[in-house]
């Protein structure tokens, strides 16, 4: 009964989305207030219905209602509750319902919090949200319906893939969707602005909080996925340039560019067509990612089951949404140029270069990801593009970007004094050289260690430059005054500092993990030890232990540094029953900046000897700290009072309104 309710709710949502997507658009064109006024209530209703549908589906999973096809295929009574819930989105159909729910949720938020928006813009933006929702609800109802029943209901389900029964991975899709789908708001606003024929500072200010929120969630979502891969896949890797990893990373790159470009529109009403393009492109890339994962034309660890019919539907959705918006862009954007003049050396100029570098990086990763597909389709042969390619093209693009990110905050708007800025960066520059040389020497002084030196130097440059800038703003003659100044700085300024620092910390992680990782693989009998990087791992033996839906072999390793025992690691090798699969659970001990990582391998002989794989992973925790810092920066920026007050009305500016930022 509840399932039918959910199914019905989704069907009604389809109609509501259609109404939301058409009437307000027509109303905006004809200045019909009644039709325009339909947008917000429709968005709220669509959200409620989508949540009901999602709730109904979740209920079926939680109660293990195997008469529902999706539950039968993906769940099992022995699964822990958390994974029964996360099983809802662990498969294609359910994850699409989550997608729709998040989309509707964002639409409702715009309806609720966008009270200060001009009526036409609001109506058009919500209408575009509605159209997107309509497309995806239709996709679910007609090709990927999770509410179908089977009769007679089986007594037990097929279970969820053991890999997905993991806390990190349970939250990875929702976080990712909040990001991906969150960029739909920027997309809708951009299309609405194109329809309106006008982009201005007020528009950029309205778009900012939505873009920030989406970016923050996407950052966390990608970080979660990477973290999961690190501790689950068992050899300490954390990024593989896998096609679907790339599919989430590319919109992150353009989303970052969008965030920065929108600032220029907000302050100086320049770079308008860039910003509009980035807003459209970012969500389009989210749609592309959705297509690639579900259509079966790309093979990847992440790919859902291949189904070409679904692929055709999504492709048509893509063609309509992306093709339509780019057509609109080609027609309207040329008229949108203009805006504040600025000198080449200025903050606007710097942000323009920022746009170019990030967009090129995104295009490059996209090229590498799609190239095998394109080559195969054009009958140029079957080739593969792996991590070595991406590393060799991505790093050279990111390097100037990181250097620029250190200088940029020192540049003033309109016309900047580059000499003065570089003068203030003397300390940072000097420290960078010292760090580069110091790292190179400490690492061994070989040619290959140059890369490590370079990486640490970049991180040092960015960190010191960022802190220098922040201090420059708040420093005063006495400490108390400094803190007062810091408190009075707009939150967005702190946000920027945190986010750029996060980036620096991330680079430390990337450099350390790539350059100084050590691995030892040996067969150990109980009592024997291996040494890695000054740590001694002593194998105590292995035993069998049962789990809720698996049986496992658990190994015990005592970790010593010198004479002190610092950790007890218990990695496992699990055999799941339904579906039958073996997974490894690594045991990780994190000292503040290093991970000690142990995996138990196969048994070797009958003497209780097991293969042990020990990894020394320096600076890997910095990867996660960096991601968290960046997301925190986003959150802090989001909490900026000026974004909550809302944009000032165009007609009457309250006295003393526009702050110094």
């Amino acid at each position, binding site marked *: 009964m509840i399932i039918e309710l959910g199914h019905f709710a989704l069907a009604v949502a389809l109609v509501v989305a259609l109404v939301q997507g058409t009437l307000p658009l027509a109303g905006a064109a004809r200045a019909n207030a009644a039709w325009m006024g339909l947008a917000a209530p429709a968005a709220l209703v669509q959200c409620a219905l989508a949540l009901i549908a999602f709730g109904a589906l979740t209920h079926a999973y939680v109660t293990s209602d195997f008469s529902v096809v999706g539950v039968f295929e993906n769940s099992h009574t022995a699964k822990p509750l958390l994974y029964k819930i996360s099983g809802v989105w662990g498969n294609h159909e359910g994850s699409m319902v989550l997608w729709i729910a998040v989309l509707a949720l964002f639409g409702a938020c715009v309806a609720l919090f966008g009270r200060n928006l001009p009526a036409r813009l609001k109506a058009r933006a919500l209408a575009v949200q509605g159209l997107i929702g309509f497309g995806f609800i239709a996709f679910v109802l007609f090709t990927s319906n999770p509410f179908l029943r089977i009769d007679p209901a089986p007594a037990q389900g097929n279970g969820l893939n053991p890999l997905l029964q993991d806390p990190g991975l349970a939250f990875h899709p929702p976080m990712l969707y909040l990001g991906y789908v969150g960029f739909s708001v920027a997309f809708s606003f951009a299309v609405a602005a194109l329809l309106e024929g006008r982009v201005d500072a007020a528009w950029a200010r309205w778009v900012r909080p939505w873009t920030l929120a989406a970016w923050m969630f996407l950052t966390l979502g990608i970080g979660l996925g990477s973290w999961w891969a690190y501790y689950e896949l068992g050899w300490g890797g954390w990024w593989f340039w896998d096609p679907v990893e790339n599919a989430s990373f590319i919109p992150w790159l353009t989303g970052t560019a969008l965030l920065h470009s929108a600032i220029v529109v907000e302050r100086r009403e320049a770079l308008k067509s860039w910003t509009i393009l980035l807003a*459209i492109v970012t969500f389009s890339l989210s749609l592309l990612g959705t297509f690639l994962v579900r259509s079966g034309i790309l093979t990847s660890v992440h790919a859902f089951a291949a189904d070409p*019919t679904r692929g055709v539907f999504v492709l048509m959705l893509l*063609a309509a949404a992306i093709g339509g918006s780019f*057509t609109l862009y*080609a027609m309207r954007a040329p008229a949108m140029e203009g805006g504040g003049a600025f000198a080449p050396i200025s903050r606007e100029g710097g942000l323009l270069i920022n746009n170019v570098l990030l967009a090129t990086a995104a295009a490059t990763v996209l090229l590498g990801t799609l190239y095998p*597909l394109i080559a195969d*389709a054009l009958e140029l042969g079957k080739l593969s593009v792996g991590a070595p390619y991406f590393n060799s093209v991505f790093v050279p693009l990111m390097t100037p970007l990181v250097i620029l990110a250190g200088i940029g905050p020192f540049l003033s708007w309109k016309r900047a004094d580059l000499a003065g800025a570089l003068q203030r960066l003397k300390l940072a520059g000097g420290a960078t050289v010292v760090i580069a040389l110091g790292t190179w020497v400490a690492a061994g002084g070989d040619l290959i260690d140059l890369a490590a030196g370079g990486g640490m130097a970049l991180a040092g440059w960015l960190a010191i430059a960022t802190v220098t800038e922040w201090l420059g703003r708040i420093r005063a003659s006495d400490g108390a005054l400094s803190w007062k100044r810091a408190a009075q700085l707009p939150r967005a300024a702190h946000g920027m500092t945190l986010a750029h620092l996060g980036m620096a910390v991330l680079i430390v992680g990337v450099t350390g993990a790539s350059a100084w990782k050590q691995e030892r693989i040996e067969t150990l009998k109980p009592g024997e030890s291996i040494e890695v990087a000054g740590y001694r791992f002593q194998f105590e033996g292995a035993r069998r232990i049962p789990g809720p839906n698996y049986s496992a072999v658990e190994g015990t390793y005592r970790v010593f540094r010198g004479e002190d025992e610092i950790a007890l690691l218990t990695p496992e090798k699990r055999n799941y029953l339904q579906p039958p699969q073996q997974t490894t659970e690594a045991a990780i001990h994190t000292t503040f900046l290093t991970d000690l990582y142990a995996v138990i391998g196969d048994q070797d002989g009958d003497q209780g000897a097991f293969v042990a794989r020990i990894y020394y992973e320096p600076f890997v925790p910095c990867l996660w700290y960096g991601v968290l810092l960046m997301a925190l920066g986003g959150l802090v920026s989001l909490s900026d009072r000026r974004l909550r007050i809302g944009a000032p009305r165009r007609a009457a500016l309250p006295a003393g309104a526009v702050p110094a930022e």
Partner: protein
Amino acid sequence: MTAVAAKRWPFLVPLLVVAALVGIFGKRLLDVQQGADPRLLPTVLLQTPFPEMDLPPLPGRAQGKGTLGIKTSELKGTVSLVNVWGSWCVACLAEHPLLMELAKSDDVPIHGIAWRDEPTASARWLAQHGDPYARIGQDPRSHAAIALGVTGAPETFVVDAAGVIRYKHIGPITPEIWRDTLQPLIASLRP
């Protein structure tokens, strides 16, 4: 180009890129819908000589065939099929009846490479399901499989009388595949 057009054409580029990509994706989807599997790795060994190998025979076969291993020189002289299989391979069982029929009709010799298999397991499997093979070579460590660029079982090669690989079929052979592709090819390779 007029001034207006000169200004406008860069704005068309995103649309053109999207159109091209949609076209490519569409073509690819159509291919997949018509049965192409994007994960299949087509062979690069067409029109190249069958790799040199000398695989030990499989003992325990009926009718005294337990001494017939696979030696590349012995493949020459007649068109033959070389089938990579294993007792662990479920899909091989699916094509087995067809192979038995082909063997019975004595149209073309079928040789088998027992890939990554225990000899006793292979022999038992053949005793249970039938033995269509003329020669069988054991390949416990994938040397032959790798030499042939094999990625899974079953895979079947068409080798002509000069010992040149003319075709590779990935996956089980269905009656349609035999009738529409393999049989005509084999006929055309005979003088």
